[in-house]
C-alpha cells in the first residue's frame, strides 16, 4: 500500500509545476499572481508531507497524548512550524504583488505584461 505522504508529495510537485506553467504562459498580471498562489500551496504541501510518519498523530499534547509517551507517538513538529511561517509569508508576498499590480494598472491603464515595455531592450 502506497504511503500517504508519498501521494501528497507527488501532488505537491505537480501543483508547483502547474503553478509555474501558469505563471510563465499567462499574459495577465492577476492571472500570474493566481498561478503563484497555486505554486505556494504546492510548496507547503511538499514540506508538510516530508514531516509525516505513518501511524503517528499530531504533535499537540492533551488528554489523548500524555507527555510521558509523546516521543513514541507524535510526528516531527519542525516542518509544520516552517510551513506555518511559509503560509503567512505567502500571504504577505501575495498582498505585495497585488499592490504592485494595482499600482502598475493605475500608471499604465492595463494589466497586460506585453504593454510594459520600458525595461525591454
Amino acid at each position, binding site marked *: 500500500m502506497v504511503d500517504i505522504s508519498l501521494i501528497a508529495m507527488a501532488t505537491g510537485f505537480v501543483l508547483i509545476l502547474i503553478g509555474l506553467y501558469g505563471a510563465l504562459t499567462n499574459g495577465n498580471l492577476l492571472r500570474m499572481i493566481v498561478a503563484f498562489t497555486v505554486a505556494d500551496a504546492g510548496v507547503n504541501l511538499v514540506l508538510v508531507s516530508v514531516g509525516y510518519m505513518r501511524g503517528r*498523530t*499530531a504533535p*499537540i499534547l*492533551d488528554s*489523548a*497524548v500524555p507527555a510521558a509517551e509523546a516521543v513514541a507517538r507524535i510526528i516531527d513538529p519542525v516542518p509544520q512550524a516552517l510551513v506555518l511561517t511559509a503560509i503567512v509569508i505567502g500571504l504577505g508576498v501575495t498582498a505585495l504583488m497585488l499592490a504592485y499590480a494595482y499600482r502598475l494598472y493605475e500608471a499604465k491603464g492595463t494589466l497586460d505584461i506585453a504593454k510594459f515595455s520600458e525595461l525591454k531592450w
Partner: protein
Amino acid sequence: MAEALVSLAVLLAGLAFLLALWRFLAGPTAADRVVAFDVMTVIGISFIVILALLEGRGIYLDAALVYALLSFLGVIAVARYLERGY
C-alpha cells in the same frame, strides 16, 4: 458497527464533494460556481469532523471551528464584486 457506519459516512461525504465539484467545473455562470464553493466548504467541515472521529483527537475540531467562522468571507467578497463591482 459504529466504525462501519463512519466509513460509510466518509464515502457519502466524498460523493457529495464530487457532485459539488462537478457543478463547480461545469456551472454556466460565476454565481453557480460560488454556490458550489460554499457547499464544498460546508462538506469540508463534515470531512474534518469525521477525520477527528477517525483519529480520535479533539484538537482537530479547531480547524472546523475556523472554517465555520470564516467560510462566508470569500462568498461575501464575491457577492460584493458581482453586485457593485468593488
